[in-house]
């Protein structure tokens, strides 16, 4: 049990008739980065609000570091670091004032814990006298992370930290998370970006208040049951509607400029697809067999959920 950091069982939360969480269970081990991956409305924020003691679950229970999220809320608030999805620091305080304010509330000593945030805070330190509201998106996010870390939390909970942040800042941010993980902090992160799943130690794929699958990214990819092909063409839309009529095809989805086609049985291969397309006078395309990504898995789970 001592390896478990966060534990949730049968968590249910309804907002009126809207079912935000429909009985979620999961385990997060100490010192890992655990990603909750899912689109908007999947229930990620609701789940995080329950874990951060902001929201009471309608049913089920959860513990963080062995403390119950409802009964031990007061102690939990001292060991959690939380970064809400929306920038929630005081916009009319300066960078420095925000940091001092949050350190003050937690009765934390900035110089004592500075090593934790040094890498992050050093980047915004030149703007220490600037008001938080006047910072760019990437800098706001670094400041928010610094403030969430200044009391040396045991568990860091980040709700969509990279939404609306440019690609370079996103990569930097994940590098920071991995460094924090190496300091022994357990990190829960919610994100709608499938490509970030690979960076997590383990992930849970969420949709409509359910966890569809969880495990390491490799396990999830390995569980993908179909052969997968990618087709590139300059007539993507025509190709998509055509290929969906082919027998032996499980699904066909747009992926950027390409179409990912999954086969419903092992008999469907490159040759079969090529023959089918050519027999329908489709000539200009590039076809290859690929290994699935998390997004392919996600869409597959989603379709299975809808079917059942």
């Amino acid at each position, binding site marked *: 049990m001592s390896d478990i950091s966060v534990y949730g069982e049968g968590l249910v939360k309804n907002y009126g008739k809207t079912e935000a969480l429909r009985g979620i269970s999961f385990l997060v081990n100490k010192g890992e980065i655990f990603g909750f991956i899912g689109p908007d409305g999947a229930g990620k924020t609701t789940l995080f609000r329950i874990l951060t003691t902001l929201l*009471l679950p309608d049913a089920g229970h959860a513990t963080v570091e062995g403390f119950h999220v409802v009964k031990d809320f007061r102690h939990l608030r001292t060991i959690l670091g939380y970064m809400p999805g929306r920038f929630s620091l005081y916009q009319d305080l300066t960078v420095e004032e925000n940091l001092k304010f949050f350190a003050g*509330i937690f009765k934390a000593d900035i110089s004592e814990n500075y090593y934790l945030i040094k890498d992050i805070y050093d980047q915004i330190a030149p703007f220490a006298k600037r008001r938080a509201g006047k910072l760019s998106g990437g800098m706001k996010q670094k400041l928010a992370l610094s403030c969430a870390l200044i009391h040396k939390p045991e568990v860091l909970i980040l709700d969509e930290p990279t939404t609306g942040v440019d690609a370079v800042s996103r990569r930097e941010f994940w590098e920071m998370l991995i460094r924090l993980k190496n300091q022994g902090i357990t990190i829960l992160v919610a994100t709608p970006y499938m490509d970030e799943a690979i960076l997590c130690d383990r992930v849970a794929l969420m949709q409509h208040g359910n966890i569809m699958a969880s495990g390491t990214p490799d396990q999830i990819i390995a569980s993908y049951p179909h052969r997968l092909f990618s087709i590139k063409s300059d007539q993507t839309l025509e190709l998509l509607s055509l290929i969906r009529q082919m027998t032996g095809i499980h699904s066909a989805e747009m992926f950027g400029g390409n179409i990912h086609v999954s086969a419903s049985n092992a008999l469907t291969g490159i040759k079969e697809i090529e023959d089918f397309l050519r027999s329908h006078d489709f000539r200009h395309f590039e076809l290859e067999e690929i290994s699935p990504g998390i997004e392919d898995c996600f869409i597959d789970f989603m379709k299975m959920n809808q079917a059942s």
Partner: protein
Amino acid sequence: MLPIIFIIPIVQLLILSYAVTFEIKSIRLSITDNDNTVASRRLAGHFRSSPFYNIVGESADQRDGAEMLHNGSAHQMIVLLPGFEKALAKGQPAHVQIVTDAINGSAAALMNAYTLQIIGDYNREILAEVSPQAGMPVKLTWSYWFNPQLDYKTYMVPGILVLLVTIIGMFLSGMNVVREKELGTIEQINVTPIRKHQFIAGKLIPFWIIALFELAIGLLVARLVFSIPILGNIFLIFVVASVYLFVVMGIGLFISTLTNTQQQSMFISWFVLVIFILMSGLFTPAESMPQWAQNLNIINPIAYFISIIRMIMLKGSGIHDIMIPLIILAGYGSAVLSLSVWRYRKTI
């Protein structure tokens, strides 16, 4: 924001105190004299020489006067019927008709009172001429205590000071909490170990200080610009204001715990505030309200404070005279504040 907080109250004090008056300085009067004799012209002369009247029309046809009342160019018309002088000479009652535009009821009543007084003076003159030895059976003398000149500013300014303090207390503190909800900063704060009463105290104290500071400025303006007498102890005014502020801030905070947006909070605060102000006796005497409305003032903090501050400033009342309302305010304040601490939720 900071300059606004300080400038607006002073401007409000200056404008309201000069503009809001119960006196009517220039009554536009139309005179229809159908008698046209020495006696009737003498009565008209009384109105003409009064500083309160402005004669806007004189005509032999009362339809002209009626027309002026209709189009708003006259406030009031008086009609002297033919035979006015003759009736007086015979010792019979002479008739004067007064017609007043009563769109604004309280103004109409005031104008009527002025006019009746002028006609009363005229009556007395006639009586004195007819039988000099008669005189009036009862001679009246009066004096107004605590405001000898019946100066409306002396009456209004303390009330307006109360309003300033109230608006700051009720709006700024409550609005501040709702603003945190709107911006989302409260979500971050709620996850910290900060306690509810600490958070509420943090929301109260700055505005409490600002409001007391503004009261000081207001009193200074009242003293220097309006020469309002401050007979009582200034320190006592601040003691009362400090207690009173906890009541209004408590109400503001309580409203903010019930609402999620500044708009909702603003709407409810205004609703409560307007009722409290209108019933407080600031603009109209609370004594003239129906009994049930006067009873409602038991929960109206503004009514307490206005009556206390007028007592201290104009009457020089000491702590003993205001003890009971002060204790009520203190109890009220602790009740409302406890209620809002209890109602404030660190969960959503």
